[in-house]
């Protein structure tokens, strides 16, 4: 397998779009419930935990870019094979594939769950996952540029929801934040760790990097995307902490969506219904980008034809989404992917970087 990819110029995109790729992939199912998850660990100081997570996020992104810059035009699959050799490298690639599969599954399942709780208790699961997967297939058939376009356009179509949060802000109780620094360092770190699930998605950089036209400009959009994600999570969490009382927040599973419940407009009494339906557009870039990464990895690892592997993956996802029925299982799935993602996305690159460096030096000495 070639470490470096050769990409036709008409398939590449500007580095500018990395902002949207990274950001839309990070914001998704996780954002709906993130305030509660962090709050349970870090309490009123959750904002510090998020800032810590944000800083670490930038650090990881920096390491990832350093790794990628060691190669001309490689993705993680190629780098792993180059560093670890054929077999171990491919095994790591398979770990990525499994991770992508499960995160796709958990994103789909979580959204279906939300729709069932908030809008349609009766909507069949197969129908919803059929909807989401058919949109995924339709977008993926268009190739990489359509995938990037999906994340860009759906970002524009949904970002305005942030403005509506101004109503809950007026109901905020600032007493909930003081006194600060009540939480111990360990709990802060736990909170930061829990933030991980909502900010998974950074790993896409390892896969899209070869498709970027102006590689020297990669850093800025990636970091801007991460900063924006951190800002959104911070905003949502801070507003939730102020809006709900502490005990209440601990019981509110989808705090972000519950914030929308008090918003009403002259033509729409209950904005939460619109917001949750519109959340489909937040989810689609997730599904499409993860799906693309999954298909791309399969192609790179086993030279599988894109179309047929796409259909097979979609059918598998469809069946899996129908078979998992209980809320407990969904939570378990989310936890698993969350911890797998944490190691794969936030720890692994930090370990990989020194190995890449050693490997490169070793090779230089061998070939004078």
């Amino acid at each position: 397998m070639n470490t470096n990819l050769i990409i036709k110029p008409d398939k590449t995109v500007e580095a500018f779009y990395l902002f949207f790729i990274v950001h839309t992939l990070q914001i998704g199912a996780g954002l709906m419930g993130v305030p509660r998850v962090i709050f349970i660990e870090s309490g009123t100081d959750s904002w510090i935990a998020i800032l810590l997570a944000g800083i670490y996020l930038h650090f990881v992104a920096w390491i990832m870019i350093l790794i990628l810059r060691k190669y001309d035009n490689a993705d993680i699959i190629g780098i792993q094979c180059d560093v670890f050799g054929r077999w171990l490298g491919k095994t790591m690639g398979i770990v990525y594939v499994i991770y992508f599969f499960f995160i796709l599954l958990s994103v789909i399942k979580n959204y279906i769950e939300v729709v069932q709780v908030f809008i349609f208790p009766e909507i069949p699961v197969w129908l919803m996952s059929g909807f989401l997967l058919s949109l995924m297939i339709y977008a993926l058939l268009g190739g990489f540029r359509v995938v990037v376009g999906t994340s860009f356009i759906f970002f524009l179509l949904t970002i305005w929801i942030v403005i509506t949060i101004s109503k809950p802000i007026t109901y905020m109780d600032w007493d909930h934040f003081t006194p600060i620094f009540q939480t111990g360092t360990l709990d802060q770190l736990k909170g930061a760790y829990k933030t991980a699930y909502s900010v998974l998605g950074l790993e896409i950089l390892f896969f899209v990097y070869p498709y970027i036209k102006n590689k020297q400009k990669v850093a800025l959009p990636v970091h801007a995307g991460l900063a924006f994600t951190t800002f959104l999570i911070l905003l949502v969490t801070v507003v939730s902490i102020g809006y709900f009382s502490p005990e209440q927040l601990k019981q509110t599973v989808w705090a972000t969506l519950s914030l929308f419940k008090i918003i009403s407009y002259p033509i729409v009494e209950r904005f939460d219904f619109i917001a949750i339906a519109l959340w489909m557009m937040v989810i689609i870039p997730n599904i499409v980008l993860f799906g693309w990464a999954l298909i791309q990895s399969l192609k790179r690892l086993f030279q599988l034809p894109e179309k047929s592997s796409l259909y097979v993956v979609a059918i598998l996802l469809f069946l899996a989404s129908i078979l998992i029925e209980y809320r407990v299982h969904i939570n378990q799935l989310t936890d698993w992917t969350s911890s797998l993602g944490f190691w794969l996305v936030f720890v692994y690159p930090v370990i990989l970087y020194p190995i890449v460096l050693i490997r490169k030096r070793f090779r230089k000495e061998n070939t004078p």
Partner: protein
Amino acid sequence: MTWKQIFIVVVLISISTGCIPKSYIERLGIITAIGYDLAGENSLRGTMVMYQFDPSTTRPSQVVTSEATTSKGLRLEANKMTSHRLVSGQVRLKLFQDQLASRGMTKYMDTLERDAKVSDMGLLGVSEVPTADLLKMEASKEATNSGEYIKKMIEKNIEDNVLPDATLRTFIHDYYDAGIDPTLPMLTTTDGKAVISGQALFQNDKYVTKLSSQDIFYLLLLKNEYKDGQFQLQLPDEALKEFHKETPGSSAEGPLHVSLHEIDSDLTIDPKKGKPTEQSVNVTIEARLLEITKDVDLKNKKAIYKLEKEIEKKVKSDLEQFLEFLKENQVDPIGFGKIYNAKNRENRVTKENWRQQIPELNVSFDVKMKLLRHGTVE
């Protein structure tokens, strides 16, 4: 077949098989207001004001009463009485009879909060008379039914700063928060009309006592910074004796009433470090004098100064009385405990220990009054 044809076929199959039970609005009984009464030892009586749309009737609003043991059960029971499926997604007002409310309201509201279909902006209220009487009353001309009328009445009073917020969201927020108790408006009937008679005070979710409507002002004054309100108070008859104008025919006799408008207040509550029961409150009130029942020479600066002092004295003593009332009933609608928690790390107030500490509450009030302008006539 191409992908597109398969897609179309799949969509067609889904449309024909993936149907969801529909809820056409003309087949629904859309409940807009519910009242809960205590029917027996263990049973509830629910009164539901709802819209149901029939081609034949001109008045779409109807009232149904049913009995059951849980609030969901009420709906099931009521369903048997109407031709339309009853739904609660448009409930905007929930009333609880005081006897029922004193047993704790959350067990009847549990469904409210879990059910994502119910709006958080619905209003809550407590009623001194059976809620059935309130909701079955003939509505006034401007509202379609009495549920709608009561809702509008409470909404208006909240907007005019006469009542504290009574939305479900605020109630639940205060209920869950440590060191603060929720309050709700109290309703009753006079002359066959629904009126607000005061404010219901709660211990957690249990109704304890009624605050008279005169005292709601003090509750509002201590709860938040006050904006654009109005208030009337009675001062000692002879408080401004030396400034009375000596004009014949003017009424020097009778009580001295002062009417204040455009009240803006500044509020700071300072708990003592480590001691949640020791608090000091600073209130600065700015207001416009609208009316005074005795002929007082208001051009005299001294008279104004005296008046301010008298009002300060009166407000302070009223606040102290108000606090005594709260302590007697072991309720804290103002949230002294919560404010303490926001400023202290040690000896924190919890839901459990605060209730015992309320009677020991010791608050020193400091009231400052500023009369800005006074009427158009000098």
